[in-house]
């Protein structure tokens, strides 16, 4: 299992858990918006899509049952730890 990384470097379709967020790298207002959209420590996320022509910006993220768009600059401040994909029979 790969060790902790940041959200911008996470590979697509790799479920992960948010382990830490560097709130100092994000403005207060945007921090509130991030939390309002459900991104916080301990939340499960999955990176689903990248931007136009495979550019890594912005990123479409699955949080709970919702899909949200975040920019790479914010993704960089979010540390995640990949979790194993449970393959049920």
């Amino acid at each position, binding site marked *: 299992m790969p060790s902790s990384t940041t959200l911008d470097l996470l590979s697509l379709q790799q479920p992960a858990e948010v382990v830490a967020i560097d709130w100092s790298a*994000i403005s207060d207002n945007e921090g509130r918006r991030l939390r309002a959209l459900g991104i*916080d420590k301990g939340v499960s996320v999955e990176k689903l899509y990248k931007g136009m022509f495979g550019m890594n910006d912005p990123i479409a993220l699955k949080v709970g049952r*919702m899909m949200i768009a975040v920019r790479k600059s914010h993704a960089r401040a979010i540390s995640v730890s990949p979790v194993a994909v449970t393959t049920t029979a």
Partner: protein
Amino acid sequence: MSEIAPLIALAGNPNSGKSALFNALTGARQKIANYPGVTVERKSGHFTFADGRPAELVDLPGSYSLDPTSPDEEVTRSVIMGLQKGERRPDAVILVLDAANLDNHLRFALEVIALGQPVVVALNMMDLAERDGLTLDPAKLEQALGVPVVPTVAVRRRGLEDLSAAVEGRLLHKPDNIEPVVAKDRDHGLSKQAKRIANLAIVSETAGRRWSERADRLFLHPFAGPIILFAVLFVMFQAVFAWSEAPIGWIESASEWVSASIEANLPAGFIRDFIIEGAIGGVGSVVVFLPQILILFLFILLLEASGYMTRAAFIMDRLMASVGLSGRSFIPLLSSFACAIPGIMATRSISDPKDRLTTILVAPLMTCSARLPVYAIIIGAFIPPTQVGPGIGLQGLVLFGLYVFGIVGAMIVALVLRSTVTKGPNSGFLMEMPKYQLPMMKDILIGLWQRAWIFLRRAGTIIFAATVVLWLLLTFPKVPEDSAMSQVDYSAAGRIANVIAPVVKPIGFNRDIALALIPAMAAREVAVAALATTYAIDATDEEAEARSLTERLQSRWSLPTALAFLAWFVFAPQCISTIAVTRRETNGWKWPTFMVVYLFALAYVAAGITYWSAVALGL
């Protein structure tokens, strides 16, 4: 004493189906106004309880949290807490939750419930949740939240009676004097609590792949996605022209018929001239654009209601970021192709103030439909209808070029503004991308009707007034019989134009254009009406009167002048309504003044460069 109808507030996250529920409860009788002092829309309507008692329903802006991050969320918070100016405290709140997105929507619900006001939860879009393989137990949710929970499907009008009964019940058992209890440390722990309650309410969940996710694999594909977006936009602009031909023809024949009837039934004289040349000629020449505006809005409303618009914003974000904006600006700028006014109002969804200001300032550069008549008449008169390739006509190519000119201009201006007057850290792009939905015809029709009404009201007031004033200025004072001057030169308008003419002479504009530019300040499309009126009044004999506006333009304008005129209209801020809405949205005269000055400067330079180059090339 007559009892005041209770005020019920409808609150919920964006994309919870709140507006659909509002439409289902109130029907088409809605009132749209603004909250005093802020640029947030207040949408209200009436509805009646089962026993016939009336209530007022107000649709609050969609919010993620009571801790506001935008003016919209600020209003929602103030209204619910009874602190909003111009609004009494709601007697009850209907909280709308997307049944398929409980863990996210419960956060806001928990915050509102903690305030202690009478609350009823509408567990909306139950059908979609079931389709996603979710089975929910509303009773369990009711227990956990301590407030009534009613399952609804707003678009199919399911559960509306139960909802109204539950609200009525809450109003009757209203507890007295509840002080607002502001939850401490709302953010942390709230997510966990929401998740726990959601898990309680979810009875079972099958992991069926949702079709919405499958659709995104195509629409958000790194290569197919942008191509599809481009195709959608192409079809949209194509439709604006192709589908509008027939209805425009009907409106034209209708206004001709009205003119003819008046001519037959009224004695010749001032009143008849006034009605035919001033009123019908002026307003009629503008109302013909209603079909195009409605088609463009039909597309925009469909794209918004289906959920595709947010995908378009996602795809465009990287491109917009290169000029310092975000994907969020894409939607307002796209709307500006119909009209800058709804475009500028749509910037309210942009949370970053500098992003929003920049978007407002460049919105008038998007080629709005009011410019079409100006482009169409000049292109028709001066650009030959030759083919430059298979299926590509030169006229169409010039028109397309003018659109591109505006877009490129807007990008450059945005880049310059973002590094000067609206300088600031690059803003983020945080946005929910809701599940795809089949748009409901009723909601789309209500939206279209509201746009049509706004446009017609504008045509009936500002545009009508402008054409009437111009007609009066052109008609008076009457030129004396023995004078060698033409009526236009002798008239008040002609005298004003003669003062402006020297200023615009260097860029190739003649007196008639200077004259047309004045009333076009009211609305750009009036320029065409103004030229038509000017040449109609100026016509000295029967023969000249019979010539079309196109022929008159060809005989009086050179090609460089015509091209300069087109370039001018790409930039010139000739629309009082846009300036007024900018003033309202930016709360002052500073930014609208800045906008007018920079746009006039750009228009002058662009027209000048076009004219001088065309002359130098010997065109």
